[in-house]
């Protein structure tokens, strides 16, 4: 408690620290560009494999099929028709395109593997450096220990179950404790920041033949280069899932106040410890 008192009062009033806010928005931009340029790269070879190798002719666990009349996604043996969206879609001029992901989902909106790769690697650098900086800063300013630490009490299944039920009733916070992250929030933030985002970096690096020569462990831990590519793609989907849940909870919790707080900092109101 004494340590708390020594902090500057100004800092205590701010709900999201400057580092957190800066990183949040840089990261949001990076992820948007990385996902969209990544889909451009995926369009060059819309098939996913497990193992070290995989090419046309080898078994793909997921693949996009396309023709002038039909688009579909095949997962294992299951075909899902996606005409109009994936594998067969109309571009801005009304012309049918048979690339896997449509122009509105890719950067650039037309197919250029070279340009997609340039966007991807440029923003991958910003994203990686930003994530590393944010992780270190958040450990030093005790954001992680103070806000994301999960107590033994919170780990109890009954506590987690209660929080799940509260979420289903759209009750996210105990009254007067809006600044204290609940267990599901903590788990998802820890999972994204310390597991999923680093996983994207390492699976990305594992696809580089030069990196694999330097650090052969990169492909070994994922069971091969093509496995790393598949995990990279699945990780992208999990990030999109996180984004959707993030947006839904934002809408339910008051989008303008919450977004504004992430821009200018916001107040740590109702937090008895900090009052």
């Amino acid at each position, binding site marked *: 408690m004494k340590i708390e008192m020594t902090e500057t009062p100004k800092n205590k009033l701010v709900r999201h620290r400057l580092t957190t806010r800066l990183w949040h928005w840089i990261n949001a931009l990076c992820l948007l560009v990385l996902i*969209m340029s990544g889909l451009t*790269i*995926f369009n*060059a*070879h819309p*098939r996913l*494999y497990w193992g*070290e*190798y*995989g*090419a*046309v*002719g*080898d078994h793909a666990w997921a693949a996009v099929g396309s023709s002038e009349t039909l688009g579909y996604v095949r997962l294992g043996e299951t075909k899902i028709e996606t005409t109009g969206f994936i594998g067969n879609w109309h571009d801005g001029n009304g012309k049918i395109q048979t690339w896997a992901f449509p*122009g*509105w989902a890719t*950067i*650039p*909106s*037309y197919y*250029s*593997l*070279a*340009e997609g*790769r*340039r*966007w991807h*690697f*440029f923003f*991958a*650098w910003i994203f990686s450096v930003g994530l590393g900086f944010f992780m270190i800063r958040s450990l030093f300013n005790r954001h992680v220990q103070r806000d994301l630490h999960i107590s033994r009490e919170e780990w109890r299944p009954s506590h987690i179950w209660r929080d799940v039920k509260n979420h289903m009733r759209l009750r996210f916070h105990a009254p007067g404790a809006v600044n204290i992250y609940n267990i599901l929030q903590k788990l998802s933030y820890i999972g994204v920041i310390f597991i999923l985002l680093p996983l994207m970096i390492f699976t990305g690096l594992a*696809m*580089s*033949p*030069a*990196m*694999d*020569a*330097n*650090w*052969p462990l990169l*492909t070994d831990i994922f069971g091969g*280069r*093509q496995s790393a*590519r598949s995990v990279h793609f699945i990780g992208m989907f999990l990030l999109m899932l996180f984004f959707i849940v993030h947006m839904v909870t934002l809408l339910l919790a008051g989008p*303008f106040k919450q977004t504004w707080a992430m821009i200018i900092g916001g107040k740590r109101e109702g937090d008895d410890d900090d009052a």
Partner: protein
Amino acid sequence: MMRKLLTRRSLITSAALGAGGLLTGCDALSRSPSFQNILASAEDANFLVQRALGDRMELASEYSIADLSPKFRANGTRDPGTPDYTSSATQGFVNWQLRLTGLFAKPQIFSLAALQSMPQRTQITRHDCVEGWSAIGQWTGVPLKLLLNLAQLQDKAKFLVFHCADRLGGRPYYESIDLLDAFHPQTIMAHRLNGEAVPIENGAPMRLRVERQLGYKHAKYVTGIEAVETLDNIGSGKGGYWEDVADYEWYAGI
């Protein structure tokens, strides 16, 4: 309240404009040469960092026979199809020549038989295409450094340019590497794939293997190796066919 509504409306409007504008904006940026240069600076960082890691001569992973792809995928040119090439192919490439020209003290001409009589290296490596797929194959060939030692590079030489028998879209295919990769122990002029003569679709009678880089660097149907000081005067000056026509990066380590 009024203020809030206005804010909300303008927020929604700008969000909608933003979503629509984002793509056209990205496309405009993507087509702008100066913005391309900014984006491409990350590629310089990739090159510097990847070369700084390790001892610069790290070997690419090698695999066992059990790891081979059932079929080694062919991409790009599957048959050069020129009269010269076809007639050479029907004779088993006995008249094929690999010429070492340019900045060498002793320019050389090697026949396929001469190359086959030299010390060989066999390696089972993974071939990674820029498109995303991979294939594992067993390659046998002459280490490039043996040829370079015979031809003796001049001090001015900075790059090796690989001239090829195939043309894509009317342009001759070529590629280039720097001397670090040229003297790498796994860089070979390969004439055998999986224990057989390299098939035509994979680059018969010989192709470059430059492990640690993506597939488009592995020039097929190689007829000449030219030592140069600069890449400016070859093709459109970017160091390779795909670099010239599609802006692929010259350094293809990622």
